[in-house]
């Protein structure tokens, strides 16, 4: 009985400690970020390429099909109320406010997040981070900050591209295949979409960019430096990012309503 209490105490203690370490880690990244952006933009650009440009294919393919299925479902269900013309509005609102940022963040975690954490974990396992430390180069600044910044910058772009391709997919399905009037499609969309809705999506994409990149970098940096440890860190990156993104999504939506 006593040991159970002790276990709980230890777990809670460990949780609080990890949480605190996580906050400090985040602050360290933030603190080094402006200087890295100013002095070594080349490093950040390379990471924007790695996380952003290399995720384009998956983002665009998924965006097209998500938009397409929204068009199908929207059409089928709105047809019950004779409101097929609103399909543009429904798809645009869903993509802009929710699905664009959330699905992009989840895909980002799967494509770029895992790549980041396994790369950093492997650098740790093969002593590359220690080697930098020994060459008097701060690995947090040289390795982690550019990767974090690259993710943070790439995410809003990916979300915007995802949403656009999604709209295109919905357009193809509903206008070209299901014969919704093209004018009605766009007019209904423009009538019901507000600048606020777009801003909500952009805000979410920025928050998710920070969350997803931070998790990936954190998990990689704290991976146990073995093959198994790196594998576990990669898995945890996806799981934790997914949970965090969905929780943040709920909170932001609740606040913005």
């Amino acid at each position, binding site marked *: 009985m006593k040991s159970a209490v002790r276990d709980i105490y230890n777990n809670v203690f460990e949780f609080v400690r990890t949480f605190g370490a996580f906050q400090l880690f985040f602050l360290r990244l933030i603190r080094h970020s402006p200087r890295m952006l100013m002095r070594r933009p080349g490093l950040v650009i390379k990471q924007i390429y790695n996380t952003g440009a290399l995720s384009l294919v998956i983002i665009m393919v998924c965006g097209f099909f998500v938009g397409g299925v929204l068009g199908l479902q929207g059409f089928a269900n709105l047809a019950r109320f004779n409101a097929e013309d609103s399909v543009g509005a429904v798809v645009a609102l869903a993509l802009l406010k929710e699905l664009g940022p959330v699905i992009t963040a989840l895909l980002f975690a799967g494509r770029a997040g895992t790549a980041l954490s396994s790369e950093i974990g492997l650098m740790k396992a093969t002593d*590359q981070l220690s080697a930098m430390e020994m060459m*008097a180069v701060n690995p947090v600044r040289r390795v982690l900050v550019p990767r974090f910044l690259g993710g943070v910058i790439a995410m809003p772009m990916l979300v915007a591209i995802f949403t656009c391709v999604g709209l295109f997919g919905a357009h193809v399905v509903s206008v070209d295949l299901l014969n919704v009037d093209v004018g009605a499609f766009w007019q209904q969309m423009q009538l019901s979409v507000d600048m606020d809705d777009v801003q909500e999506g952009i805000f979410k994409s920025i928050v998710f960019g920070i969350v997803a990149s931070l998790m990936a970098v954190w998990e990689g940096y704290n991976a146990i430096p073995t093959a198994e440890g790196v594998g576990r860190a990669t898995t945890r990156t996806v799981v934790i990012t997914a949970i965090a993104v969905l929780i943040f999504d709920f909170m932001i939506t609740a606040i913005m309503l």
Partner: protein
Amino acid sequence: MHCLNGFLLFCIVSSESENLIEIRDLMYSRGARVIFKDLNLTIKRGEITALMGPSGTGKTTLLRLITRQLIPQQGFICINGVDISTLNQRELYELRQRFGMLFQNGALLTDLNVFENVAFPLREHTKLTNRLIRHVVLTKLHAVGLRGAADMMPAELSGGMARRVALARAMVMDPEILIYDEPFVGLDPISMGVIVRLVRRMNDALGITSIVVSHDVAEVSTVADRSYLISDGKVAASGSPDELHAANSELVRQFMHGMADGPVAFHFEAPNYAEQLLGRDSE
């Protein structure tokens, strides 16, 4: 406190002497496991010092302590007369720029090619022009015989080549102290011979102080000026390779001649064999 003052004084005095690194009464434990206790050793300027010992004695840990990637619980490590536990981040990085370290597997940065790997410290710490960097890097690569491999990626290199590139990188800032962590492990005889020759040549030609951590007795004996044999968290024996070979301590003999059983037992601690087989430990 008194003791500390006395030690700092000692540090200052010895800074003029030929002792580059002094380790006194070092205690380090990880969790409940004590790795070093009352460890004392001295590394002399300009010599090649070998740290030897059975695997698992914490040789790599000792290197991490010397370079302050770890901090000891007790005792002092003085480099050039400065207690390194007192340094702040900036001073520590200044100190580390005077170190070169060769990691076990080279630890080359996988996303940079050989040239950029060697140029890395220069790009990070100096504002040299590209032409000058090119000049320095090619010189160092030439010294390890890999000028022709400048455009290759680390993944394309063999183990011995990777280690030579890492050596060129460790040399590029012209360090005072070069640390080799297990430089001979997993190399074919030719690469091994190359590395042994390089260690010796770097040390003599450039007046560097070298520390070699290894358990390859034969290779160490050919390069080291002085060896420390570490076992059970202490220095078990020290002296020139010849002295160690001639030593009559059982542990030293076992290690130097590679005997399977001795003070370092062949069997890991276990209950009585007969009893366990007969199943008496089941209750």
